């Protein structure tokens, strides 16, 4: 099956058009307030797997528009809309989608730089006294939140000591016309650069936050791109075309030229503002309210009537998807799979746990001996995103890590409590304070965004004993009889939707 179905979109706005062409973009002209209403509507849309809401009218004071969870995938295919954005077929199987993304990441394409006149994000430019963060309708997402947020964007920062530019995603809570607090959790790349380089030298870190950048950019900012590698090149690889960058107005950074909004500024050293509480991705309102670094805004550029995409965190907990969970599947999954293969691990697929983003991942692998799994787990837990992640579950390569029933069955039947649950020490490992199982005292002073008390990381070996085959009932290997059985069922009227099975089974048809 070919993965080439068309060109990737070049802008967020084009992406919305592509959604509209497929009838899955709901432009709402009715006034919906940025103050909880837009979030509530988005939550309901997420729950019902409905079209993506575009709120055309959210404020008397701004012509900007809100877009609720624009990358939320379909319930059974979370990667579907990201595939569409990248010009990939929406009918791919999980395996085919993964391999298509991996293939593209293996072929980076350098960005091009355009003049400001050619950059859509420069249609309007605000600098100096003209800067007013609160002139934009940033959404207030949950009634218990500490403030209004931008939570679906790409934060761009240069490494202080090298030529490397990091793209990442760190939410920002707005405090006044020019200031925001940014959630920077030590252990991740950009926070490390800030805490251990810029701040140690008492220097501000120049940053740009691009809101509504093109999908390939958003995807890469979610990925675990290795330090020193060009994120822009990977984005180019993903879209099979160069990403257009444009210089900022007030610093030396370059930003995606088609972004809806660009916030240029500096994250100040040794300066903090409150951040949170926040209804977060694991379904609980965690605390306590933290002190986080201060972003001072120097310039704002934007397109006319810009779109502000946002995600309703916590709505992905359970059965529904949102942008976060969909991007975990569509971006982090293939990227991490590629990363593990690149360093020599025999990994079939890495899949995020669908009910709890960023906390647990399932990895299928052909090689299942204990020392190999220990090495694999040990390697993963040392990487930069792992302060969020507490668990990995390993399953055999013939178990689809996206087939949650099969994964649960493997855990229940093949994970021996005596031998297959492995912790790297009882309490030896770091943890971000975004958790609910530690007391406030254990979280302690979170100046660096890590908990005072250490925790454990665990991997679960849910692979079968050596030589034990997969027991899933009669006829699993009898593909001809299975095909005939399906024909009988479909002839009898079994709905095609009901006939959908896990990818592992669907390979029968391919």
């Amino acid at each position, binding site marked *: 099956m070919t993965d080439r179905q068309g060109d990737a979109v070049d802008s967020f706005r084009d992406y919305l058009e592509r959604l509209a062409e*497929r009838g899955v973009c*709901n432009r709402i002209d*009715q006034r919906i307030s940025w103050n909880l209403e837009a979030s509530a*509507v988005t939550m309901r*849309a997420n729950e019902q*797997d*409905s*079209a993506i809401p575009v709120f055309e009218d959210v404020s008397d004071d701004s012509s900007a528009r809100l877009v609720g969870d624009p990358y939320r995938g*379909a*319930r*059974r295919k979370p990667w*579907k809309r990201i595939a569409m954005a990248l010009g990939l077929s929406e009918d791919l199987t999980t395996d085919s989608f993964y391999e298509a993304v991996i293939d593209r990441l293996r072929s980076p394409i350098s960005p091009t730089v355009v003049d400001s006149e050619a950059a859509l994000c420069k249609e309007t430019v605000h600098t100096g006294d003209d800067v007013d963060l609160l002139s934009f309708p940033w959404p207030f*997402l*949950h*009634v*218990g939140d500490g403030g209004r947020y931008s939570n679906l964007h790409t934060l761009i920062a240069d490494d202080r000591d090298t030529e490397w530019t990091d793209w990442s995603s760190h939410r920002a809570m707005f405090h006044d016309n020019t200031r925001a607090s940014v959630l920077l959790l030590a252990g991740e790349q950009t926070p490390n650069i800030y805490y251990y380089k810029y701040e140690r030298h008492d220097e501000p870190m120049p940053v740009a936050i691009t809101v509504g950048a093109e999908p390939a950019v958003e995807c890469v900012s979610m990925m675990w791109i290795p330090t020193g590698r060009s994120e822009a090149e990977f984005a180019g690889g993903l879209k099979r075309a160069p990403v257009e960058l444009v210089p900022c107005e007030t610093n030396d950074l370059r930003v995606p030229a088609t972004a809806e909004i660009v916030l240029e500024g500096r994250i100040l050293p040794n300066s903090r503002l409150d951040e949170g509480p926040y209804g977060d991705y*694991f*379904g*609980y*309102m965690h605390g306590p309210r933290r002190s986080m670094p201060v972003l001072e805004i120097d310039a704002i550029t934007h397109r006319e009537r810009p779109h502000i995409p946002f995600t309703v965190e916590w709505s992905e*907990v*359970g*059965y*529904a998807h949102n942008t976060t969970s969909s991007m975990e599947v569509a971006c982090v999954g293939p990227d991490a799979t590629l990363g593990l293969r690149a360093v020599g691990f025999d990994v079939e697929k890495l899949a995020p746990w669908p*009910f709890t983003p960023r906390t*647990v991942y399932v990895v299928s692998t052909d090689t299942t001996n204990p020392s190999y799994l220990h090495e694999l787990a040990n390697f993963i837990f040392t990487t930069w995103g792992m302060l969020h992640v507490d*668990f990995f579950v390993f399953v055999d390569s013939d178990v689809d890590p996206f087939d949650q*029933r099969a994964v*649960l*069955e493997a*855990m*229940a*039947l093949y*994970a*021996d*409590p*005596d031998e*297959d649950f492995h*912790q790297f020490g*009882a*309490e030896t490992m770091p943890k971000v304070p975004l958790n*609910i*199982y530690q007391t406030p005292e254990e979280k302690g002073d979170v100046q660096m965004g890590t908990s005072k008390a250490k925790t454990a990381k*665990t991997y679960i070996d849910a692979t*079968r004993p050596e030589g034990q085959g997969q*027991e*899933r*009932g*009669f*006829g699993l290997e009898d593909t001809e009889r*299975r095909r005939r*059985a*399906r024909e*009988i*069922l479909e*002839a*009898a009227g*079994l709905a095609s939707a009901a*006939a*959908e099975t896990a990818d592992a089974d669907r390979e029968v048809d391919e």
Partner: protein
Amino acid sequence: MTDARSFREGVDALAANDDLLDVDERVSDEDVAAVAAEAARSNGPAVRFTETSGVVTPVSGAFAGPEQVTQSSERPWKRIATALGLETDASYRRVVERVAAPLAAATEPAETDLLADPSDADCYSLGLPPLEPGAPPAFTLGVLAFEHGDETRWLPVRGSVRGTHRVRAVVPADSGLTSSAEVSLCLGVPGAAVTNTLLHWLDRSQTGSIRPGTKSDAVPTATHEGRVVPATSEVLFSGRVADFEAGSEPSVDGGTAWELAMETEVVDVSVDAVAHRESPLVPFVPLGTPLTDDVQLVGITESARLNYRVNNYWGIEPVEWIRLPAEMSLGMCVVASEILYAGFEWQLSNTLFAFSSLFDKILILDENTSAADLSRPLDDIWVKAHPSQDWVFSEPSAPAATAPRYRTDGEPGSRLFINATWDPRWDEEYIAPRVTYETSYPEEVRRTVAEMWSNLGFDSSDD
């Protein structure tokens, strides 16, 4: 008094609920298992095979249910609810209470006439499908009735046809069944007959109790060859135990789920006569396939039994619900309970381990967690339980659990309980509020959204 629904009435109710697929195409006996397995794998409806080689009409999935891991609106217990005479959208609690009813109170069945008539059919001409190509015709989810003292005892039974007048049966060991005993093998019995019988033998084999009995007012009875049997049985074989050392009864993937919970023995029955109702319906289970009838039935019945036992153990009823999800093939027990005091979670989990040999893993949830939403436990297990403090492993000296397959040598092993509850010693301010639609948006906002929702232009998903 319950709605005493026969197997046939249960299947009719599934049809009325649009949860039954009639396969009118002629399906060879050797293809029935494959079709039934595909329907189960596809989360499809129950399947009735109206055109087969013999007398019987096999029905697969009559007690099964769809997986709930990815389907929020599904209730895996819905067909068992239907079979028991409950509404199809009955809550989990209601189904569990119905299944556990014989534990709470003994009720007497109504005595009526047997609906099956004598037949010229023999064991082969009935047309029972095999579990796999080349295997003998098989039966599952039956009840074997025999006289024991002054009562008729019912056993869960599965087996296969071994001759024109001979069947081989797997039954619980030490059941009181003796060589040459006269027996009635009943197929197509009411759902309540199956759950009552399972309840009795699960409890007896794991706690030694002889309560509850297998009979209740949910299953009208009749006399067949001097033995008390479910009056609405679709097919009855009558005969005698011919061989108590019949050898093995091969099975796909270990047999039926109830066999995981107890020792079994294999007996051959010499069949003297066959009786059946007109166009008899019999359940057919494609053993080993995920989410099949037997797994759902044992999951619900064992949950009901455990729920009753633990809530009648400490003099109070702390447990809200217990589930052995079929999705986890009975290897894990999920329980929602009030945590009465620090350490109660240990007592609770070890009580459950003591009462059931099936599982070696328990997930404990707070009492306000819904039994109808499997996704919340699958979130809480990772985010609420401290990875090093709340994953509690026993010494590797516990009796081996029977559902897991990582070790089959019977050697002792460890048990695990995961405490995904709030520590009762924590100050209230430590407790992170659960984020929900209701807690995230004031009533006024929710009302506004509800009022304008129909005008916002949301259509159904593109999928």
